């Protein structure tokens, strides 16, 4: 960092006495107090999740969803309703454990039921029964989150009731098709499912592993503690919570087409139609050039993918396609399609356009 480069300070000849603190007009040295205060504020709403049984992924050799085992430690969740709804990351259940427990801050441990999940945001909803008046944290409105503001991530994944704290800033407010806030506070399996806080202890989002290039369950974990971390905001996500509470699984909606670049300059042309393709059913044919999607002009494959990332299964999307006989708008109702092989579950089918990167390093 720029402010630790210089060191032209004369030192005493013999010294084991630490230097006096520097003047701190900008308040850097106050920050740790505020980090702790923010963490203390959300702590009552944080829970420890433990899982028992499930697919064995421990050990160095076992690979699940393209990552090496997800670890054996406890994971973190955040209370979102006073009657026992808890949001956490789907990453924490990659082992598909038959038994999940939630420990509240009062030490009481409860068996939890996994309700629904949002695979596009890597979050899911747990429910514990027989509880009331649980503390729900304050969620920050998306519009209040600014690049450069402090961000604090918390999680209990190291196996201690006391959460580990990492501090950084908000790096970007709009990532992964608008689903995530990016931070340079550390995010890793130690805090996936835990909160990313602002300096006042309000929840910016839930820490999850994400990557723009893959939806695979474990994708994004490679970026752990790397300076690139993501949190999905929950402010105003009542519909999403309600859907998960109803047991729904939210998945990326797919067109079911294969694409190629229209010209060297860009543009996207349909190269093939996949089996059971929603686009195919709607009348899209190989050779069609996709000029616009959902009202946005399509520049290239990457942009098409980013726009598609905003939609889920069941959404209706309008494609403007160009053929020899002119341009027309076609409405497509998106569906879930089985992931293409080689871990490239992309809307475009990934051929012959640029191959999306898998979760490998």
């Amino acid at each position, binding site marked *: 960092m720029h402010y630790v480069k210089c060191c032209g300070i004369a030192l005493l000849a013999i010294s084991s006495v630490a230097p*006096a603190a520097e003047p*701190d007009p900008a308040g850097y040295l106050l920050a740790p*107090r505020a*980090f702790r205060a923010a*963490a203390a*504020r959300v702590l009552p709403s944080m829970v420890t999740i433990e899982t028992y049984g499930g697919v064995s992924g*421990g050990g160095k050799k076992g690979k699940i969803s393209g990552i090496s085992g997800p670890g054996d430690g406890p994971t973190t969740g955040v209370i979102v309703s006073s009657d026992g709804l808890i949001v956490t990351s789907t990453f924490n259940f990659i082992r598909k454990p038959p038994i999940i427990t939630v420990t509240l801050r009062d030490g009481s441990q409860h068996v939890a039921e996994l309700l629904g999940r949002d695979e596009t945001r890597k979050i899911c909803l747990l429910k514990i029964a027989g509880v009331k008046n649980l503390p729900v944290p304050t969620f920050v409105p998306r519009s209040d989150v600014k690049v*450069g503001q402090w961000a604090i991530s918390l999680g209990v994944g190291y196996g201690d009731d006391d959460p*580990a704290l990492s501090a950084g800033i908000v790096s970007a407010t709009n990532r992964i098709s608008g689903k995530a806030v990016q931070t340079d506070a550390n995010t890793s399996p130690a805090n996936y499912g835990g909160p990313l806080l602002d*300096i006042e202890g309000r929840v910016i989002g839930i820490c999850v592993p994400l990557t723009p290039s893959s939806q695979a369950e474990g994708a994004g974990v490679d970026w752990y503690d790397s300076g690139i971390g993501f949190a999905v905001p929950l402010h105003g996500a009542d519909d999403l919570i309600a859907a998960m509470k109803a047991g729904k699984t939210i998945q990326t909606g797919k067109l079911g087409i294969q694409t190629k670049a229209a010209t060297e300059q860009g543009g996207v042309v349909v190269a093939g139609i996949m089996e059971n393709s929603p686009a195919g059913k709607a009348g899209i044919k190989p050779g069609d050039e996709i000029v616009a999607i959902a009202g946005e002009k399509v520049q290239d494959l990457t942009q098409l993918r980013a726009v598609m990332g905003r939609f889920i299964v069941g959404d209706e999307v309008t494609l403007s396609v160009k053929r020899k006989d002119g341009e027309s708008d076609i409405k497509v109702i998106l569906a879930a399609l089985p992931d293409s092989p080689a871990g490239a579950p992309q809307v475009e089918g990934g051929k012959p356009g640029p191959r999306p990167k898998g979760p490998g390093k």
Partner: protein
Amino acid sequence: MPRLIKNKLVLRVAGTATLVAATLVAAGNVACAAEPAVDNSAAAQNVFASAVAYAQARCVKLYGAGIGRDHGYATGIIVSADGKVLCAQGVYLAADRIRLVLPDGSTHVAEVLRRSDAIQTALLKIDVPTPNYFDVPDVCPAKKGDWVLAVSNLFKVAEGTEELSVNMGVASLRTKLEAHRGFSEVRYDSELLLIDAITSNPGAPGGAVVTADGKLAGMIGKIIEGTATNTRLNYAVPADLLRKFIDDKPIAEPATPSLVSTDKIKPGTFGILLFTLSGKRSPAYIDRVQSGSPAEKAGLKKDDLVLGVGAEIVHSVGDYQKAIADLKAGVEMTLLIKRGNDIQRVTMVSVEVPSATPANAIEKPVAPAIPAEGKSTEPLPKTPLPIKPVDDEKKVD
């Protein structure tokens, strides 16, 4: 004194989080136009300069043997005026000649005085005076959330008299890694200070982790991958443990009673027989509770699920067997039990394995071929079996 001013400021605003926040939002945006009072001079922004310079003057570069993926270089911390240097354990120490480069660029040959397995640390000595050294405190000065500066020879990018690299972060958590969660390669069984600066890089181990006012908080530890998170840990060996090591005092706490293997104490049992027909990886459901056993007295029943034994989490039958493998008689332990949707903690005291009831006595398989715990019809030997850890851990993986 600057420090006094700082403390006053903290006291004044600490009562209201919002005020602190307001101050800090300004702090994070030094160039903010709405804060005319902010001093933008380089000196004012560089609140860590003294601490960094102080630490850099007290760290050394180490070069030794590199074998395969183990790097032959590291960092060290000067801890006395007579040439004592702390560093992390590593293959590089196996070299015939450990080369130590002081901040002035002079090269010296270091010898290893002592090593500690508990904190994976070694104490080196060179034969020249080292007037600049760290005072290693009795108490770690970094609290959770405090700024920490990590000074190290990472990737050996600093050569000769070049200053060591600095990473900044905060102290994340002081914790003890659960030994049973099996950390790969390194046996580090003491407390450590997790930090969020990325220090798990080649060459960084042995580097100094200091607070914003230059006090030694710890030493960057040998690289560890933790199975709790399956990630590399960024951590420091806390300064107070380094102090104990320098003073040659014991570091590791005494082992918990249940793990003390005293020959005179007989192997113990709770009288729980698990359902093991679906293998060691299946959840630890109780198949039978032996009559008159501690488990029966505690009210445990068939189909109860064991989720934990003491501090150990039980994912499976194999975990339970491991957890009680060394159990002695007369040990009080709390089991975490799930019955239906209820979770209970049940405390019991183990009793001696009853050698007179051969068929069902023991809670671990005598041989891997026998499916259920104690379901063997073979009589047990008259003397209690020497209880050993289940040796099929490799198969579990």
